[in-house]
């Protein structure tokens, strides 16, 4: 296998705020191969969005990327890159779909002109060419009557259509990797499935890779190839979808799966993970999940676990992988 399209190694991001330092991301490593769909799953506050923003150099002002962090995209180094590098990367190498299409489209410009504008930013072409390319893109993302929709304003479209339009905007620079941050969070359940299907189609047709950021494991199962589970700024488990759903090794992942299954089986009591996610300015010592973990023992409270290999291409940040005998206890 050649070099992955995107390789993040030991990425640490901290925010320096008035009440101390918040370590939003701690030593995160991940790789996305060409034409692969990787899902990043975690609760709010686990660092998912910080990771997405770091990939595009859009972290807000007080954030600092640790000097040892590496972000490599198709041979370009992106950690603490300069403005010229970002100009080359944003939009045409890495595209981004934001969470809420209601606020991520400019309300005073038509859909068509917003797409055409991005097309012209990345390719030298005449306004009419950009315009017809915009209509093509709208058609590609499954918008009916694209000529009419292109002339409409965001408020005239439904939520699902707006999300499709936002995806068309992100595709306008023909990126090799699309980062989608909670692309379905603001949508109805039926529309969510359609949008995910669209992502899967686009990957096949355009040969691009996708990094799908979500808190919903159920969505991931349908389209992703690999899954990374994040908790408290760290990757706690990474595995293929099959491995994750059948043989997950981290108690947190099992908790998430349990909550998802409970919903499917319509149990009256949800299998929730006890406790609340910790705050980034005060992660627990040692294993960050131990205060909420039913299986935690002395080692978990004193020694921070590393990512341990549970199987080929399956890692979990849990001492249970090293001491499987304890799982029965």
């Amino acid at each position, binding site marked *: 296998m050649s070099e992955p399209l995107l390789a993040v190694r030991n990425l640490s991001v901290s925010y320096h705020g008035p009440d101390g330092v918040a370590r939003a991301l701690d030593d995160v490593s991940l790789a996305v191969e060409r034409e692969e769909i990787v899902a990043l799953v975690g609760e709010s506050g686990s660092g998912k969005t910080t990771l997405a923003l770091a990939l595009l150099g*859009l972290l807000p002002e007080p954030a600092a990327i640790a000097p040892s962090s590496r972000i490599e995209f198709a041979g370009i180094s992106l950690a603490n890159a300069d403005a010229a590098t970002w100009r080359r990367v944003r939009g045409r190498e890495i595209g981004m779909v934001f969470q809420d299409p209601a606020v991520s489209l400019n309300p005073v410009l038509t859909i068509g002109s917003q797409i055409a504008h991005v097309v012209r930013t990345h390719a030298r072409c005449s306004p009419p060419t950009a315009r017809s390319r915009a209509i093509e893109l709208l058609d590609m993302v499954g918008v009916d009557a694209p000529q009419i929709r292109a002339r409409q304003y965001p*408020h005239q479209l439904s939520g699902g259509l707006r999300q499709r339009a936002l995806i068309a905007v992100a595709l306008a620079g023909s990126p090799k990797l699309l980062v989608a941050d909670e692309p379905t969070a603001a949508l109805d359940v039926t529309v969510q499935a359609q949008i995910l299907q669209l992502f899967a189609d686009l990957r096949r047709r355009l040969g691009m890779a996708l990094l799908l950021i979500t808190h919903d494991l159920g969505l991931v199962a349908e389209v992703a190839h690999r899954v990374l589970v994040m908790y408290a700024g760290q990757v706690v488990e990474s595995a293929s979808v099959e491995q994750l759903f059948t043989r997950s090794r981290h108690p947190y992942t099992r908790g998430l799966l349990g909550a998802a299954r409970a919903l499917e089986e319509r149990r009256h009591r949800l299998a929730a993970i006890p406790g609340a996610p910790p705050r980034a300015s005060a992660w627990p010592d040692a294993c960050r999940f131990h205060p909420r973990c039913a299986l935690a023992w002395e080692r978990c409270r004193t020694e921070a676990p590393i990512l341990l290999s549970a199987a080929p291409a399956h890692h979990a940040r849990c001492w249970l992988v090293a001491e499987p005998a304890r799982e029965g206890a």
Partner: protein
Amino acid sequence: MRSGWWQHRAARRGLLLVAALTVLALAAPLLAPYDPAAQPDVVGGQLLPPSWEHPLGTDLFSRDVLSRLLYGARVSLSIAGLATLVALTVGTLVGLAAGFGSPGVDAVLMRLVDAGLAFPRMFLLLLVLALWEGASTAALIVVLGLTSWLPTSRLVRAEVLSVRQRDYVLAARALGLEPWRIVARHVLPNVAPPILVSAALGVGQIVLIEAGLSFLGVGVPPPTPSWGNMIADGQHYLTRAPWLAAAPGAALGLTVVSLSLVAEAMQDALDPRATT
């Protein structure tokens, strides 16, 4: 959009009024029945009430008020329009720089604006015009413009600060748009409506300030008529010859009303969510 513009009733009325005023001002030499500076009968023709010969009467020097009103429109409207343009340009640029620049730039610019706003404007204008001997109309425009941009820059900065936080600006950055393109395409259209409304109201204000300056003797020099110095002259004869102040006053009021109609319509037209 363009057809929608014309369908807006207030826009149509406002635009027609502004167009009519502009035509009247431009065509003053053709329309005015007399030379605005001519004093045909200084003894018998003073302060004549409106009549067929002088539809708006005559002033203290027997000059025809209608002719002076028409010529005065050219002076007042061009001074107010150009000064507003100067104020708008400077105010928008400073506001964008403060709103989009680093916190340091913002702090310095806004403290300068604070200092400028703390200074009485009339006093500043009098000082500059008194020191600038033989100030021309062009100088008056520049001075009026350069003392009127302060509130505009505040307004623009506040709008920019709110717009730059919106997700679509972050999305635009994520898609590789350069900062100046984001300002031009995403920020300016969103801050334009309040700027244009304040500009339309600003024109009226500048005509009034010009009137005040002319009243104090440092505005448009006497033989040239302006609505400002006509109102100033008329003030002394409000009871004996009310038409002297009423005619330019009504013209000024009409201008301000029609401009604010246009401004209001622009606000609706620039916001696609407000359907007419």
